[in-house]
């Protein structure tokens, strides 16, 4: 699974940052049929999680009605320099992880 994440590498302490994520996934609902009429089995991402310094700050559950290639946008407040970890878990329990480093500096 390919993912794209937009997060600035550096931020001022206390600043609100918009994070955008995009994951490549067909998100088969289990109700669609292919060209010869056979049901395409359900295949979806179930959970997305974002951890900032090992604390969960955003979590989302997807259902079979979510469109392919799910896009999310949410905000975090920059508090401490550290890792921001993004995790997608599909229905088979397969994890896709991506780690970004956020440098938090004091405003002068």
């Amino acid at each position, binding site marked *: 699974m*390919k993912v*794209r994440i*937009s997060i600035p590498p550096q931020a001022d302490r206390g600043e609100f940052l918009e994070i*955008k994520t*995009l994951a*490549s996934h*067909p*998100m088969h609902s289990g109700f669609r049929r292919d060209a010869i009429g056979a049901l395409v089995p359900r295949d979806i991402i179930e959970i997305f999680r974002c951890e900032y310094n090992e604390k969960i700050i955003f979590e989302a559950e997807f259902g079979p009605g979510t*469109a*392919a*290639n799910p*896009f999310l*946008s949410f905000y975090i407040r920059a508090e401490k320099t550290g890792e921001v970890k993004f995790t997608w878990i599909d229905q088979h329990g397969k994890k896709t992880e991506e780690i970004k480093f956020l440098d938090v500096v004091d405003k002068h």
Partner: protein
Amino acid sequence: MKVGRLLFSLLIIVEMTVAIASDIKLSPRSGYEFQSIDTQSMQEDDFENPGMLWVDMGELYYNEPAGKMDQSCADCHGEFPKSLATSFPKNNHHLEAVVNLTSQIQHCRTVHQKAEPIDYESETSLALTVYLASRARGEMVNQIDSSPVDQLKASIENGRVYFHQRKGQLNLSCRNCHDSSVGKMLRGDLISQGQSNGYPIYRLEWQSLGSLHRRFRSCDIGVKAQAQALGSSIYINLEAYLKERGGDLLIETPAVRR
């Protein structure tokens, strides 16, 4: 008096015939203008545009060695020139045929890299095509005259004929919608000019990236006509004609459409 009246009515008949026979000349408008504000903003933001996933993949494939020659695209081509994608469709001297970007990639793949052939609508093929085409984003559609001119001219002419040819059980030509009915509603959709400046596109209905030829097939199937094969010369001709018709539109690849 009688002669004058006769001449007058003759003139009207001639004028009417000319009006029916001549092309309706529209100034080119991108399909972007026919989308909802939501779809437009999805295209404009590179992080919201799902087509960028394929652009990323394409960059990887471009630099990844493949085939018996164990060479990547970049080994021969280096950094792919920004506007080169706009020169397609053009004549390929070895094949002695007009090729588009995707069929050129397929040719390179099997002949130069000696790798397994790739399907026209496969992930690899779409990713490479969209990566190379997106490098020309912001460039004019019809800016490079490809040589030799004669073969390309014939291709454009054949494409023009296909565009104007009524076909299918609904007996419609491309121009019946995309020239004469632009801006009207077709069920829930606003009919666009059918411009090709954003392809390959991420189409919300497909929930995936898709090629221009896949779009052609959808239209042909829509009017209940015989759909042509992906990468067939008929569709490459049509692609060449659409490029000429697009004139000074700017490349938007990867565009997002409904």
